[in-house]
């Protein structure tokens, strides 16, 4: 499997007449690069992801995988869904079956694979998400974090090129977040491009290669450090500046950090700090 790129251009979406949620929003997910989507509550992050996945047909605009335009016909959607999978925020919206292995088998079966191939895909997906121990467990007995990872496994079993995740870390404890991110890294290694929406600016800064901010019915996309250091954009999007940028900038100001790229997380900051005051390496 090789990385594929996904792009949306000029999306217009309105749920009710008159009011538009997105109006000319464009975003591109370059193959193999991590994209984080940020934005205030109700700005349209989920709406954007639903358009990208084909779940929602925009009133105008287009979505394409590697320049192949998505058509909202039965066949067009079928083809698109083999490339792009969306994992919803609430795992209970995705888990319909009584047992974990059964649930994950749903997608591959619908692809028309034979039973052995399905079983193999299920095993692979559960392994990538590190939930293989849960295969025979009933869905309703799982913890929230476990349900979240099983829901991701259900999408992964479709072997999509692009995996879209709506707030995959919301409601998880710090260790569970770390485990989820590790699972996503394994997925990337197997050729999947990962996109996530999140409210956590610190996470976006340290995880993403690119950031897309949904603001004023459009999307602004760019480098995480630049975008999340732009106070004007942050204010319009009701976001906070990540602490690492603020603290890093100040430390540069007082000459403790070398000029140039700011560290994006604690580890990078500690590594960049000199051992003694006043010595900038």
């Amino acid at each position, binding site marked *: 499997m090789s990385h594929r790129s996904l792009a949306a251009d000029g999306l217009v979406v309105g749920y009710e007449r008159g009011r538009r949620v997105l109006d000319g929003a464009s975003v591109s997910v370059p193959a193999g690069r991590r994209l984080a989507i940020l934005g205030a509550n109700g700005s349209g992050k989920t709406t954007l992801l639903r358009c990208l996945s084909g779940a929602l047909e925009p009133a105008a605009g287009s979505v394409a995988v590697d320049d192949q335009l998505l058509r909202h016909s039965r066949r067009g959607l079928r083809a698109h869904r083999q490339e792009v999978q969306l994992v919803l925020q609430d795992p209970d919206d995705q888990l*319909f079956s009584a047992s974990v292995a059964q649930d994950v088998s749903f997608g591959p079966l619908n692809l028309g694979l034979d039973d052995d191939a399905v079983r193999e895909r299920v095993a692979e997906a559960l392994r990538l998400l590190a939930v293989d121990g849960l295969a025979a467990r009933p*869905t309703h007995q799982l913890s929230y974090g476990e349900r979240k990872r099983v829901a991701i496994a259900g999408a992964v079993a479709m072997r999509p090129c692009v995996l879209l995740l709506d707030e995959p870390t919301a409601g998880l404890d710090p260790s569970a977040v770390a485990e989820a991110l590790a699972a996503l890294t394994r997925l990337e290694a197997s050729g999947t491009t990962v996109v996530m929406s999140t409210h956590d600016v610190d996470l976006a800064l340290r995880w993403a290669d690119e950031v897309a901010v949904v603001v004023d019915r459009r999307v602004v996309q760019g480098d995480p450090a630049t975008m999340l250091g732009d106070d004007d954009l942050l204010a319009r999007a009701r976001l906070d500046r990540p602490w690492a940028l603020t603290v890093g900038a100040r430390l540069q100001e007082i000459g403790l950090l070398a000029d140039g790229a700011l560290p994006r997380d604690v580890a990078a900051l500690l590594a960049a700090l000199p051992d003694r005051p006043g010595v900038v390496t």
Partner: protein
Amino acid sequence: MTGLAVDDAAWASAWRHRSPGDKLLLCVGLVVCALVLPAWPGSVLVGAVAVVLALGPARVPAATFGRAVRWPLTFVAVSALTTVVTVDGGLGWAPDAAARAGSLVGHALAGSAAVLLLATTTPMADLLPALRRLRVPAAVVEVASVTYRLLFVLLQSLNTIREAQTARMGYSSVRRSYRSSGVLAAAVLTRSWDRARRMQEGLAGRGLETGLRVLPEVLPSSRLFLACSVLALAGIVSASLAVA
């Protein structure tokens, strides 16, 4: 976790990985024995076998089993009593009341124990695919599977919403209780619609248009288990016929 103790027991039972077909044969056999054999010694034998198997090899918690038979016990007691009481010209006992009541209670308890043996060892997730082999249409089995899954989601909503209402004194009088119950029922119903709609979207990406087919777990049948089951059933039948 779920509040349905029988279901929890089924998922945790030592017989969880036995073929549902095997367990169905044994338990349905026991149920039929409980129904058609004379109460003495048929029902007693069936009841004893079901309880011993559940608490022994299947390792069902005794408390779960005990609590689960409490409900049928109430019904059986009331109904059996009603059956053997006569109202003609004043309250009185029907002739041979004790024997009739004993026989009724025996049949019912033995049958309940046999069904419970199935229920506490076989999760719905295994039983429903087995229904397919009984020629129940796939659509019906799929609807039943979704019902089973959503049951837990809705029960959770029901309990949480009720807790929130209770905290704000929603059940502090009979009148308020009624109002709160109505609101609660409506909230759960709208949630169930909402949930179905959102699941539709959650599953569309994985190919909902072709139905809700899943790959059931392979649970191979055991010859030994089948042989022992048949032997046990035959033993019960012959013992009952010998005594009768």
